[in-house]
C-alpha cells in the first residue's frame, strides 16, 4: 500500500510538471500565418503584439525571434490553440481550410489576401482597425498613395517596355495583369506581355514569349543567365540581346510578389529599371 501511494505521488508530480510549458506563454497576442500580414502589422508598429508567426514570415528581421507555428501550408494547429491568441491572421489559398477549422474552435480568424493595390489599402485599413492602429494605418495608406502617384507621374508619356516575368521554368509559368505583381509592373510603367491569362499565375507557351519580344525579363525561376541565353529560339528576344534580365539578386521577389507596404519600394525599383531601358532607346 505504501509503495502504491509513493508511486501515485511520483506519477502526480510528473503529470503536474509535464503540464507546465517550457516557456511562459503570451496569451491574447496575434498569430500571423501570412508573411504579407506580418509585414503590414509590423509596419503599423505592432510587432510586439505578434505572439507567433510561420517560417516564411522573414521580414522585418525581428520576426526571427518569434515563436514559429509551422510553415505556410503545414500549420501546427495545436501550437496556435495553445497560445490562446486574440486574433489569427491567415492568407487565402491553402490557408482557408485552416482558417475555417480555427474559426470552429472559437478563435477569431481574419483572412487577408490582397490581390490589387486597392485591396492592399483596404487590407491595411482593416488590419489597423483590428489591432487598434487606425491612425498609423491611415498615415501609411496616405504615404503609399502619394508615392504611387509620384511613380505614375514619372512614367507618364514615356515608352513602356514589354516585361516578361518568369516564375517557373519547367513548365514555363508567368503572371497575368490581374495578378498583384502584374498590377505593380503596369503601375510602374511597364507592359506585362501576358495581359490576360486564365489564372493570375499560369502556364504559358514558349512560342508566345518569343512572339511577344519582351524588352525586360524578370527571372524568378532559378535559371541562370547562361541557361536563358542558350534556350532554343530565344536568341532574338530584345531582353536577351540587350541583357535586360533581372534575377532575384537584382530585384528581391518579396518586393513584387508580396502585397505589403514594401511593394512601393518594388515599384520604385521597377521604375528605375524601366528608366534605364528608356535611356538606351
Amino acid at each position, binding site marked *: 500500500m505504501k509503495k502504491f501511494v509513493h508511486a501515485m505521488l511520483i506519477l502526480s508530480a510528473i503529470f503536474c510538471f509535464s503540464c507546465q510549458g517550457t516557456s511562459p506563454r503570451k496569451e491574447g497576442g496575434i498569430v500571423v500565418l501570412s508573411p504579407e500580414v506580418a509585414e503590414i502589422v509590423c509596419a503599423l508598429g505592432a510587432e510586439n503584439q505578434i505572439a507567433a508567426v510561420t517560417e516564411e514570415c522573414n521580414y522585418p528581421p525581428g520576426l526571427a525571434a518569434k515563436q514559429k507555428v509551422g510553415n505556410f501550408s503545414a500549420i501546427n494547429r495545436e501550437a496556435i490553440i495553445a497560445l490562446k491568441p486574440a486574433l489569427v491572421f491567415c492568407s487565402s489559398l*491553402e490557408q482557408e481550410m485552416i482558417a475555417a477549422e480555427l474559426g470552429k474552435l472559437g478563435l477569431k480568424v481574419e483572412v487577408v489576401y490582397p490581390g490589387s493595390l486597392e485591396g492592399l489599402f483596404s487590407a491595411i485599413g482593416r488590419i489597423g482597425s483590428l489591432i487598434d492602429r487606425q491612425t498609423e494605418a491611415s498615415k501609411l495608406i496616405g504615404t503609399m498613395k502619394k508615392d504611387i502617384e509620384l511613380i505614375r507621374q514619372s512614367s507618364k508619356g514615356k515608352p513602356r517596355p514589354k516585361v516578361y516575368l518568369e516564375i517557373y521554368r519547367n513548365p514555363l509559368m508567368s503572371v497575368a495583369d490581374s495578378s498583384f505583381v502584374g498590377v505593380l509592373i503596369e503601375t510602374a510603367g511597364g507592359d506585362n506581355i501576358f495581359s490576360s491569362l486564365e*489564372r493570375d499565375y499560369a502556364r504559358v507557351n514558349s512560342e508566345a514569349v518569343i512572339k511577344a519580344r519582351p524588352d525586360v525579363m524578370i527571372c524568378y525561376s532559378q535559371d541562370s543567365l547562361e541557361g536563358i541565353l542558350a534556350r532554343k529560339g530565344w536568341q*532574338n528576344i530584345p531582353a536577351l540581346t540587350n541583357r535586360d534580365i533581372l534575377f532575384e539578386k537584382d530585384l528581391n521577389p518579396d518586393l513584387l510578389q508580396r502585397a505589403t507596404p514594401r511593394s512601393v519600394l518594388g515599384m520604385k525599383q521597377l521604375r528605375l529599371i524601366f528608366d534605364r531601358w528608356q535611356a538606351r532607346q
Partner: protein
Amino acid sequence: MKRQALFLLWLLLSVAIVMLYLGLGTPDGNILLQVRLPRLVLTLFAGMVLAGIGSIYQLMLANPLAEPYILGISSGSALGSILAGLSGFILLMPLGGFLGAGLTMLLVWHLAHQNGRFDKSRLLIAGVIAGMFFAACISLLMYLHQQDTALILGTLMGNLGRIFGQGEWYFFLFLVGLSLAILAYLFYCSHAIEIMGTGDLYASSLGIDVVQLRRRIFILSSIVIGICVSYAGIIGFTGLIVPHLVRFIFPSGQKKIYLVSLWSGGVFLLACDLLAKHLLTLELPVGVITAFIGCPVFVLLLRKS
C-alpha cells in the same frame, strides 16, 4: 481491302496532323525550327516509345493491362526527376530521371528473382509495388513542397513544352538516336517475343532462351522509358490504348503490330498535344487529354471485343 483503306486513311491523317502541328498559327522560321520542331520530335518520340513498349509488355507479361509504366520504372524516373528539380537543378532533371529509372530497374530486377531464378509474376508484382512506393514518395514531396506543385504536376501529368538549351538539345538527340536503336533491336526480337507470349515452355522447346530474352527486353525497355519520362514526364494511356487499337485492326503478327504501334503512338500523342495546346487558352497537361480520350476508347474496345 478494308484494311488497306484504313491504312491509307491513317497515313493521310498522320500527315495532316504533323502539318497542322507544325503550321498552325503560321509561325515564323525561328519558331518553326527552334520551338515547334523540337517539340514535335519529343512528342513523336514519347508516343512511339510508350505505344511500342506497351505492345511488347502486353505480350511478354501476358497481361492485356500491361503498359510501359506497370514495372515501376516511370515512377522511379519521375521521382528522380522531381528530386533534381526540387533541389534547384532544373536543367539536370532528365539526369535525375534517368538515375531514378536505373535504380528502380535494378531494384525490380533483384526482387523479380527467387533463389537466383527469374519469375514473370514476381517481376509484375515487384514492379507494381515499387511503382506504388515511389508514387507515395512523390505524394510526400508534393505535400512538403506545395510551392513547387507546378513542377511535380508537370512531371506526373506530362509536359511536352520543354524548353531545350542548345547543348541540351544535342544531348537529347543523341538519346533519341540511342532509343531508336533499342526500338529497332526490339523489332528484331518481335518474332521471339510473339512465341514467348504463347508460353515459356513452348518458346524454350523452339530454342529461345526465355530468361535471357526477357532480361534483355526488361533492361532495354527500362532505358528507353527512363529517357522518355525524364524529358516528357508520365503520360498515361498511350501505351495501353494504342497497341489495343492496333490489335483491333491487326489481330496477329507482332512485327506489324509493333511497327504500327510505334507510328500510331507518335501520331496519337501529337494529336493529343495539339488539343492540349489549343483546347483552352491555358495549355493543359497532355496526360489529361490522353486520359480523356483513352478511357472512353478503352470502354468502347471492351464492349466490341
